């Protein structure tokens, strides 16, 4: 196995006709699990399409596990497992046949693929249903089946597109446990999801895309600490001018319940500034609490900032 970065993108751009989906994306991720976040239209799906070689790169260079996507597409597809977002299956076959077939298409010998298909189906919790036609599977079972087929050839990297979509809370928990277990066993994982707690629970690294560009990227814990400090405020008095001045200083303010505000204070600014401006604008701060920042806050901050 090559000791390479999981992802290396250099100045990647892609446009559908005149619409730019990705614009000059450069990033490098050493180890996962990696979370890929972004609002609708941010370019997540396009990035996944490019990583799998479904779309040809128009500009720039990209490597997955050290293999060039444009020149070594076949090899990339051999070492990558892909769990698509939407329902995907081959009708008329049972779970084990489908999984084994896709293992065989990845380059596994037929008997090995069949043996491994049984193993991964047990692993994802479909052991008892492996001989049932996939047409009769529930939504949750199909979700597990998609995970099983992504793992059948023991990939070095799995791309999971909305892995918990449509699952009940227990199913979601189980899938997240599986993702953590897969990652703990040395398989690199990239999770694209709009469910932020899923990313927060499973990923160490995060890439936030917005409008086709990287809005933030790095270690999740560090990003949450370094980019900003989060405070909860309760104000008395007319806050409009005070809030405008905070925004002019580079802060982001979000209204919570009546009288309460969420303040994203850039890390280079001191909390003293808030009190100074409050004095100048004759606003009373009745409550000032440093809050524990969550991924949701980071997301809102970086995406909101871009917008």
């Amino acid at each position: 196995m090559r000791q390479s970065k999981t992802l290396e993108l250099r100045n990647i751009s892609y446009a559908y006709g005149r619409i730019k989906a990705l614009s000059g994306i450069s990033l490098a991720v050493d180890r996962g699990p990696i979370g890929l976040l972004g609002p609708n239209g941010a370019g997540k799906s396009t990035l996944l399409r490019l990583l799998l070689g479904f779309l040809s790169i128009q500009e720039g260079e990209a490597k997955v596990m050290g293999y060039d996507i444009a020149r070594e597409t076949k090899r990339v597809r051999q070492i990558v497992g892909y769990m698509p977002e939407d329902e995907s299956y081959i009708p008329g076959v049972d779970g084990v046949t489908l999984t084994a077939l896709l293992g065989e298409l990845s380059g596994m010998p037929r008997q090995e693929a069949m043996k491994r298909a049984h193993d991964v189906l047990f692993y994802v919790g479909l052991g008892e249903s492996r001989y049932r036609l996939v047409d009769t599977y529930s939504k949750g079972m199909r979700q597990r089946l998609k995970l099983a087929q992504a793992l059948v050839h023991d990939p070095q990297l799995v791309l999971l597109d909305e892995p918990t979509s449509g699952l009940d809370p227990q199913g979601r928990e189980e899938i997240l446990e599986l993702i953590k277990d897969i990652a703990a066993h040395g398989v690199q994982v990239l999770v694209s999801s709009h469910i932020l707690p899923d990313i927060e629970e499973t990923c160490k690294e995060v890439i936030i895309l917005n409008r086709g560009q990287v809005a933030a990227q790095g270690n999740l814990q560090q990003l949450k600490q370094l980019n900003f400090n989060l405070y909860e405020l309760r104000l008395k008095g007319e806050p409009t001018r005070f809030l405008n001045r905070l925004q002019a200083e580079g802060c982001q303010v979000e209204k919570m319940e009546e009288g309460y505000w969420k303040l994203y204070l850039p890390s280079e600014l001191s909390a003293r500034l808030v009190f100074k401006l409050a004095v100048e604008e004759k606003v009373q701060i009745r409550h000032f609490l440093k809050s524990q920042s969550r991924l949701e806050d980071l997301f809102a901050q970086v995406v909101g900032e871009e917008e």
Partner: protein
Amino acid sequence: MTIRKKGYTHWEGELKESFLVWFPLTRLGIKLAFQRRFFRLFFFSSFLPALIFLAGIYISERLEDFRFMLKGSPPFLQITPNFFKIYLSSGLFLVLLVLMMIFVGSGLIADDLRFNALQLYFARPLRKIDYLVGKIATLSFFILLLSLVPGLLFILFKLLFAGNLVFLRTYPWLPLAVIGYSLLLTLFFAGYALALSALSRNSRYVSLMIFGIYIASDIVFGIFYQNFHHPYLALLSIKLNLQQVAAAIFGQKPFYQVPWELSLAILLGLMVGAYFILQRRIRSVEVVK
């Protein structure tokens, strides 16, 4: 449902690249076809014409024994290249192939489009051409079983029943003609069925199209021919184009006074059209919506 009874385990084997990467798709297509009981019935009954023709070959070598049943020697029992042309291009045989395409081919791509299976396939080291070869090979298996295999067996049994090689010495090119025409049938019908299968996500509509276009082309010919009696109108019919080319390949006079090369050009044109439809419909942008 218990989960994670076993933790994640790595696979110790080595992934290999194979030039037969498409073969699992072919195997699956054949397996899925035989899973349908009605298809199995149709499949085995579609060999009845071949058995009747085989009986004809046997009788032709034992005319003396069967003279009490026959008046003279009907053309059916004259084993010449025309015998092969009749088997491989009769209206009934071509309809059998069309029905075979409906049973096996209508869902081959339509179902993959409908259930988003393309993204599962193309996330593997599988190229578009591998995917198409896998699908074409599925249809070829059935078409060749009905055309090439009986055609060659007829020659073999004719030699066995005759007990000499006179027939093959008289028509040494016949095996090549059987192979060539069977391949033309295979490429044409596989392209025809797959292109239509790629045009819809609903295999029922595809079935209607496969049957409808074939029959409609013949009906349109019939309507125009009744009014204008121009032999070139035969070019409108898929069936007649196949029969014209079959006549030429088996050294017979075509029924309609139209150059057989034109019929061949039309069939090749339809195959090229099918190729472009497949190229357009099996696109990477279809892979992830």
